[in-house]
């Protein structure tokens, strides 16, 4: 299956890219998507979204989803 992964703000700088496509079997949750990236443990304070809606680290992903990782938001 194919998942588009996006990174924002300080996490984008840390990971060194703003997006990446992962092609893999056996990627069932957001945490498992992160694990594929080879960036170590997913920090507890990192927020995530699936298809532009907030999700949890253990939320399920499916083929074609867009998964985003980012630090706490600071707008307004």
């Amino acid at each position, binding site marked *: 299956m194919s998942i588009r992964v*996006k990174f*924002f*703000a*300080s996490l*984008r700088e840390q990971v060194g890219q703003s997006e990446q496509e992962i092609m893999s079997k056996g990627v069932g949750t957001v945490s498992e998507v992160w694990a594929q990236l080879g960036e170590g443990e997913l920090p507890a304070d990192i927020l995530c*979204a699936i298809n*532009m*809606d*907030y999700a949890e680290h253990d939320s399920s992903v499916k083929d074609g989803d867009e998964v*985003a990782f*980012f*630090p*706490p*938001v*600071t*707008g*307004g």
Partner: protein
Amino acid sequence: MKIQLHPEPFNPWQELENHQRQQLRNQQGEFGATASFVGTMRDFNEGDQVSAMTLEYYPGMTEKQLEKIAETAYQRWELIEVFIQHRVGEIKPGQPIVLVAVWSSHRGNAFDACRFIMEELKHRAPFWKKEDLDGQSRWVESNTDGY
């Protein structure tokens, strides 16, 4: 409901006035209360002089989350109109960052909803601030509580 992101400086009061004149033309006499909030970039944060700031966002998700926040406000209070404007990109001190305006028949609803939307926006809308200090830059870590 109107939600808009501005990559260039915008004039919040002008936007508000134009929106009321254009979109609420046929509701003149219906709304008795307009509560609004404008957030402006300060030149000082956490004890440091800030010379500029870059506001990053998540195109698509940012707009979607702002719409959800506005919809929640419409469900919780009797509102006539919600108007949200937010800057993105490079911002200088003194420039407006955000405008939230709410029209209602009664002032209690307008005040409550305007403040609710601001707090939700601060805590749920995907924007990230990076401040330029003297010769270096830093990401703002978290927003302060507004109550």
